[in-house]
């Protein structure tokens, strides 16, 4: 009977212990099951952490510089992208709005990128372009060494 009682308690208990472990590890400086803190404006946007992106920018980071997005965040490979391209890749209009307020020019190429990956939310912000050649914009981002 004791075993069956323990089995009833086990699943929720296990989740609580795992969550407590995550909390404890984070307080100790580790970051289990996460990618840790973002390292660039682009990576912050890719991780949907606009707060960190703003902190980088307000600390002097460029809003147009190409940044490294570590593998496992956007895809299985590392990606090199500008903050605006990243905002399109994760379909995040607020990030795009923030970058625009910081002087980033929303180029037509971003609209092509949004069409390539089917980013619905940013497409409604950027509009569609008839001059885009399907696949070119995304190929250009992924081809970066």
């Amino acid at each position: 009977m004791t075993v069956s009682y323990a089995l009833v308690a086990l699943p929720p208990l296990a989740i609580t212990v795992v969550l407590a472990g995550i909390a404890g590890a984070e307080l100790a400086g580790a970051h289990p099951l996460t990618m840790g803190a973002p390292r660039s404006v682009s990576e912050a946007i890719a991780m949907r952490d606009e707060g960190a992106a703003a902190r980088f920018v307000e600390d002097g980071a460029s809003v147009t510089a190409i940044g490294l997005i570590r593998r496992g965040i956007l895809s299985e490979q590392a990606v090199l992208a500008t903050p605006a391209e990243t905002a399109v890749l994760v379909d995040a209009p607020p990030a795009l709005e923030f970058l625009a307020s910081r002087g980033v020019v929303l180029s037509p190429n971003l609209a092509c990128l949004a069409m390539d990956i089917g980013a619905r939310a940013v497409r409604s912000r950027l509009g569609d372009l008839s001059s885009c050649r399907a696949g070119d914009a995304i190929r250009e981002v992924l081809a970066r060494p």
Partner: protein
Amino acid sequence: MNVDSASIDLGAAARRWTWLAYAYGLLVSAVLGYFLLGLVIQVSDSFGNLLAVQSVSLEDLVRDQFSQRGYLRPLLWAQVKIVYELAAGQYYLWFRGIHVIQVALLIGLCVRLMRPRTRLDAALVPLALAALIGSHTFAPLVREAFPINSFLTIAIACVVAANVAFGQRSRWYSDAAIVVLLVGCVLTVESGILIWVVCAVAYFLGARGVSRRALVAMTACLMTYVAARMLVLDVGAPSLAERASGFGFGILEPSDLIARFQERPWVFYAYNVASSISTVLFSEPKGGVWRFVWELTVGNIHPWTVVSVLSSTAASVLLLWFARRQRLWMRRATRTYEDQLVIVFFAVLVVNAVISFPYTKNVIMSPAGVFLSVAVYHAARAWLQDVARQRLVVSIVLFTVLTCGWAFRVAGNHYNLRWTAAEQRAEWVTVDQWLERQRITLRDDRAHALRDALRRDAVWNHATPFQPSSAWGRWFDIDW
């Protein structure tokens, strides 16, 4: 061993399991509190409210609330104003601290209501607390604040009321406190009425923690409130034009609601009441939207949806079995504490749903969700004590769905707290654009200072907690 020493041993053992249950509650509170401190004061629903209380005196603020249409919540605003003034610039510390304390209080009071005394009781506390904090009616209690979550305040007050009502006997001070609690909560949010429901049903069932005199006083207060609201202040209820609401497979905007239901609003109200009951018992619909049914029809079932529906249905099956076996509605003379609490749950569920008639939201049903967890605890104990051995296969299936399902939902709610933490900071990054969209002008230096302080808290002082890998997203990333 004589009788006295045996009873001392039993008492010591009972205390050990009781303390173990409280210790587990403390652990759950600490973990949830840690995740809650990852959130900041949000822009929507909080910054605007703080601006509204900033330049008005407490008296004027409360007085203005008595001339509102649709809502009568003067003490909700008074609480925000008082904490705002007490915070003296330390907004994160005060408002987020209060949120953590509220959650810990709710968990502690729920454990107290469960009265764990045995090994089996202690083993069921993790399941019951998972049913509490894993619920979709609990999620908005922790993901949102205004910047005090008034629905959480009401949920706590209802559990306080139940603890008092099921106490051994009434005392003058507990009677006085419960009347004050009712008045305070009713003037905070309309769901405060549920405190009266808890006390009245408990009294009817034979509990005497609240005296007859106190119950009469509470009833008089409630009638005065209803009369003042309807006849004197002419506050009424929220109209169809008030807000968007879920209906069928989607959300209807106020203009759609008016077009469809202006001639027969009772159809919409009946839908809301039925949806509110169903969402607590079956996790479907959520916010009035039949998401699971829709996913079934398109053949694209999300794990988060199916687990929530299955785990809630398993809990409801357990409760219905308990109600039937105990013959709750007939067996008046020999009702146990467990029977009484399950009846209180059903009463809270029905009244909670009825007062939610103008629109349906998960958070409004949070008091019923809280009592569901306590009722599940008692029903599960009865099943494991009396039925499990005879119906082994059914028991294994039922409890696997229950325990694994609710544990999964706990993980999902914590995952969503992380996601919310990032989302809230994103709002602060573009707060000026938000102010423009809302047509809010920061009129003086104090308003600018408030915006700067809250933005600094969100972006600089309290960095976004680490975001879980996107690989987990497909399991949990549904925004309710």
